[in-house]
Each structure stands twice: as structure tokens, then as C-alpha cells.
């Protein structure tokens, strides 16, 4: 998180050296992305559920699932979130919602069919831990900062383009030959990528935290370990996911970034989840 603020500060600095008046641009960018972030955060549960075509889980048909969720909520000391079902064969699950009182979890029918009771317990505990640790808030902050950085750099680059390589018409006296301008320019090009890499890193840390919180809730590491091993063996792609919601699922839903043990270094930087083998190894040590 500190890294994000640092990058944002560097970007602001870069903009400041290029434009005489970088402060207004920064403020506008922050306000716009702030409004977008608050809206998406407030409505995050509805949006995520609609995008994934989730339906509420009927309490008679899914009695066991509801009982499982209720029991774990008692263990975790959080109110029970709404439970949704996604009709998809790929085993996966996600949690969403701005705070424990306004939260929801969604499970695919594929997961319900493939996992036994202790494994399902591990997965549900993982999702409930996301809610308990306010991970939606954390990732919204991350997305906001990425958005601000992208907006600021985009705006600045456009202004430079329109002014034929110079950013400020009245700044000719000082800008010519300013070596910092080149540094600023490079930073502008590179910072959105750096920001995305950091967002992925934050997401990976929160995933690990959710794994560990989950076994604290269930007091039974083999349950979640077994579930992750089953996920590792399964290769079905989740169709209800999109890039925007990728970070919330328990496993990478998109085949492009799937962990096959042979991920290139580049892909590793952008993974929203740590590789399954790492997660399993970590849990085994507990």
C-alpha cells in the first residue's frame, strides 16, 4: 500500500515537473477516480453478483451449504452473508461486499459437486475470511490508486501530445533542456504497468492472508489443503468470470493466467493469486 502511495507521489512529481500546474490535474484525477471507486465499492456486491450471473441459494435446496456458512460465521464472529449459487461446472467461489454486514458469497455448482464437506468448509472459510479482513475495501483502494495513476499519466501524455512535445506553453523559459523532464516522461509511460504489478502483489498477499485466516476459523488445515489440491487437478475454465472480477475468486478463473507450473516470469507479476502449489506448501507448514 505504501508502494502505491509512493508511485502516486512520483507520478505527481513527474507531472509537476512537466506541467507548470500539475496540482490541478492531480486533484481532478483523484476526485474522478475517488467517485468511481466509492460507487463501485458501495455497490460492489450487486455488481459482482450480476456480472457472474449468480442466483440466491434457496435455503431448502441448499440446506447443508447454509448450515455450513452459519456455523463458520459463528466461529468467525461475523454476521451471515447472503449466499448465492452460480451454475457453472468449474469449481470456484468468491466473496464480495463492502463490510461484513453487507456481504455476499457465491459458490459454483461445480464446486458443490466436487468437494466433500471438509473441503467445502475450507473454501467457505476462505471466502468468509476475505469478508472479515475487509479485503474488498483493500482491493478497492488498490484499484483507485491504479486508476488515479492511469488517469494522471494519460492526461499528461495527452497534454504533451497536443502541445507538440511541450506541455506548457508558458513554461518555455524553464522547460527547455530540463533533464528531469525525461525522467518524468519515462515514469509516466511505465507507471501504469508498475501500478498493476503492485495491485497484483497486494491481491496475492490478501489471498495468502485469507488462506491462513480460513484454517484459523476451521482449525483444520487438511480441509483447505485437500480443496486446493482438487482445484489444482481440475482444468475447467470458469465461464462466468471476466478480467474485472478475476481477483476475487478463490482460483484464477481465466485460462490465460492459469497456473500450470510453467508460468513465465512476466505472467507471474500479474497473477492475482499465488500459485496453488505455493499455497498448499504454506498451509502444510501450519
Amino acid at each position, binding site marked *: 500500500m505504501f508502494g502505491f502511495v509512493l508511485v502516486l507521489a512520483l507520478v505527481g512529481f513527474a507531472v509537476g515537473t512537466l506541467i507548470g500546474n500539475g496540482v490541478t490535474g492531480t486533484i481532478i484525477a483523484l476526485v474522478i477516480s475517488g467517485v468511481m471507486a466509492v460507487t463501485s465499492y458501495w455497490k460492489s456486491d450487486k455488481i459482482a453478483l450480476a456480472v457472474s450471473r449468480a442466483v440466491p441459494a434457496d435455503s431448502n435446496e441448499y440446506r447443508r451449504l447454509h448450515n455450513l456458512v*452459519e456455523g463458520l460465521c*459463528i*466461529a468467525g*464472529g461475523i454476521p451471515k452473508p447472503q449466499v448465492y449459487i452460480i451454475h457453472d461446472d468449474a469449481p470456484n467461489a468468491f466473496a464480495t461486499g463492502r463490510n461484513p454486514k453487507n456481504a455476499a458469497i457465491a459458490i459454483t455448482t461445480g464446486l458443490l459437486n466436487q468437494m466433500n464437506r471438509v473441503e467445502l468448509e475450507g473454501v467457505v472459510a476462505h471466502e468468509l475470511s476475505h469478508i472479515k479482513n475487509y479485503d474488498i475495501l483493500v482491493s478497492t483502494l488498490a484499484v483507485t490508486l491504479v486508476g488515479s495513476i492511469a488517469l494522471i499519466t494519460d492526461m499528461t501524455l495527452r497534454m504533451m501530445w497536443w502541445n507538440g512535445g511541450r506541455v506548457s506553453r508558458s513554461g518555455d523559459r524553464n522547460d527547455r533542456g530540463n533533464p528531469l523532464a525525461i525522467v518524468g516522461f519515462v515514469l509516466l509511460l511505465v507507471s501504469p504497468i508498475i501500478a498493476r504489478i503492485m495491485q497484483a502483489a497486494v491481491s496475492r498477499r490478501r489471498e495468502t492472508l485469507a488462506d491462513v485466516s480460513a484454517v484459523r476459523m476451521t*482449525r483444520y488445515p487438511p480441509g483447505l489443503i485437500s480443496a486446493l489440491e482438487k482445484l489444482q487437478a481440475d482444468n475447467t475454465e470458469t465461464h462466468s468470470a471476466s478480467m474485472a472480477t478475476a481477483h476475487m475468486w478463490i482460483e484464477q478463473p481465466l485460462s490465460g493466467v492459469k497456473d500450470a507450473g510453467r508460468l513465465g516470469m512476466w505472467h507471474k507479476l500479474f497473477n492475482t493469486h499465488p500459485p496453488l502449489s505455493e499455497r498448499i506448501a504454506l498451509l502444510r507448514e501450519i
Partner: protein
Amino acid sequence: MSTTLVVVLVVVFLALVVGATYNSLIRRRNEVDNAWSQIDVQLKRRLDLIPNLVETVKGYAAHEKTALEAVVAARNSGISAQANPHAQAAADNAISGALRQLFALSESYPDLKANQGFVSLQEELSNTESRIAYARQFYGDAVSAFNTAIQKFPTVLLAGMFGFSARDFFEAEDAARVVPEVKF
């Protein structure tokens, strides 16, 4: 004049810190109380399910007097022990043991086992047992967090002043540590 300002700022700062610490201790203590009442809620739910169970079993296996009477007696001891934690723990063991016996017995009555009411009661009871376990786990976590908070430095200096004292963990009775025996 600036010395006075500094002193005022320090005092205000300290007051804020003390206030924040006090509030966090209050929050943790209330969580402990809430967790304790959660256990009670689940225990009561189990007590409420037992009469239905006894009636259902009587319909098929009325002559199993010992087992049925044991369950009823255990339930009564559970109701009367609601105030006292020690008696409650003893009653809890009695109830678990009696229920286990009853369910083991039901294995030899296929009509009873097929009864929908019996099956759903069995599942409800098993579900309630899980919840009691989760509630006790949460109580333990809450007590641990509270005790740690009041014993850490520097909060320990304030805790005594405000009257926060450590809470007891829920102890498993020695009887509960013995592996249960099921007699057919």
C-alpha cells in the same frame, strides 16, 4: 507561552490515547460476553429439540426405557443448570452421552431410521452440536484476545485502573476428555 501550548497538546494527545485504549478494551470485553451468550443460544436450541426427538423415538421403540429416560433426565439437568457454568458443563456431557446412546440404538430400528421427522431431527441435532463447538471456539478466541489486550504493556497499566480483569477460558471437563464408549 509556547511551553503551555506544548503541554496542552501533550495532555490532549494522552487523553485521546487513553480514550482509544479504553474503547478498544470495552469492545473486546463485550465481544467476550456476546460469545458466551452465543454458546447459551446453541445449548438452548439443543434442549428445545430433545422433546420432539423423544416423542418420535417413543413411537417406534417405546420399550427402550433406559435410553429414553436417560435423555429426558439429561435434558432436565440441562435446563436446571443454566445459571451455573460448572453444572452446565456436566449437564452438557450427560446430554451428549445420552443422545449418542439413543442414536446408536436407533440403528436397530429401520422404521425409525426411515422416518423423515427422525432424520431431520438427527440432522438438526448434529448441526447444533457443530454450532456449539464453533461457539465455544469463538468464545475461546474472544477471551484470548481480551486477556492479551489487558495484559500487554502499556495497556496493562490502564486496565487495572479501569477495572478490567482477565476472563476464564471454557475448560473441557475431564470426563469429556475420555473417549466415548458406545454400548449396543
